[in-house]
């Protein structure tokens, strides 16, 4: 699970090692990546919204 999150984070950041990438695509199930990806996207929205709310004070 942690490795999936790490890989998705790398994807958001846009940097990934060839090695890790290969492992992901050989071992990981796509569904878990998609689920974690969507969850992270929502987390990102929540985070940015939080920053915006705090900044607006």
């Amino acid at each position, binding site marked *: 699970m942690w490795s999936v999150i790490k890989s998705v984070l790398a994807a958001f*950041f*846009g*940097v990934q*090692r*060839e090695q890790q990438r290969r492992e992901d695509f050989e071992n990981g199930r796509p569904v878990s990546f998609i689920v974690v990806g969507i969850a992270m996207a929502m987390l990102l929205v929540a985070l940015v919204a939080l920053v915006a709310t705090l*900044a*607006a004070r």
Partner: protein
Amino acid sequence: MRTLLERVAAGLTLALISPLVLANGWNMPIGVTGLSREIHSLHMTIFWICVAIGVVVFGVMFYSLFRYRRSKGAKAANFHEHTGVEVLWTAVPLLILVAMAVPATATLKNMYDVSEAEIDVMVTGQQWRWRYEYLGEDIAFTSNMSTPREQISGEAEKTENYLLEVDEPLVLPVDTKVRLLLTADDVIHSWWVPELAVKQDAIPGFVNENWVRIDEPGIYRGQCTELCGMDHGFMPVVVEAMEKDDYESWLAERKEAAEQESMGIDREWELDELMERGEKVYGSICASCHQVDGSGSPPAFPALAGNTEMLDDVEWHIDTIVNGVSGSAMPAFRSTLNPVEIAAVVTYERNAWGNEAGDTVQPSEIVEMLEE
């Protein structure tokens, strides 16, 4: 007027040296409000950051293109990954962005602080003019473009403030926080004066707020910036900023003029008088759609010259002007024009361009109609 060739040459020369020239007329105006200066400096900061990034990025790019030409015997390397570099060039832009977001946030918060305004002005966008209403002062007027049609069509020489001049500018005092409430009657418009750094959409059915505090007296010009139909390009915004004392006397003058006008309601007007006044009103309000010669542009804008329906039924004629036509481009002028102006323009339309109704419509009749 310079010759065509001279202007082309000038333009081309300027385009070539353009990045070096950031003089006025090429760049965002610094403006005359605290906010406009803040925004300008934000703009310049981002601009220089972009220039710096551009120099580095394009520098590396053109160096590579020059240095690693095959024609100069370059042999290709085979690397295709470097996590360190990649992390670096993701993290550094992120930091630059954060550095840019901080001042931007501060300025934005400042823009949104409309509290403690001393004057409230309601700005209403209409196809294709602005209406200003000083809340609590009983002063309201519309502001129409005053550039003559002959200048647009090229029959007359274009003057300095071509397309950016109005019959009645919005007058505001300097050093005073003014709250603007913006809305529209028909479609979305947008009220913009670059030197005041105020741009806000005016949306039918909704009210937006913005504010301005002008530092220097002067005349500041802008335009509608949201496509609002045919004459979108011909609805300028002009703000005249005055010293506080001058503003006060302007206010007093306006109020007196309004009184004078309301006295005009009671007296009997001559046909000639009404025609003269009506022609002015027609020219600034009606001519953009129904044309100066009353020929209109059917089907959207019916012809008024020889319009029997209009000539046969004076009540219908007045009603159309006062209440507009729902679902068409014809607005209601009840609140835009005063009874004298309505009477005058009706009379004018009935007796101009070969229309020969021969009757006059008196301001008092309009008042009666409006009251009943």
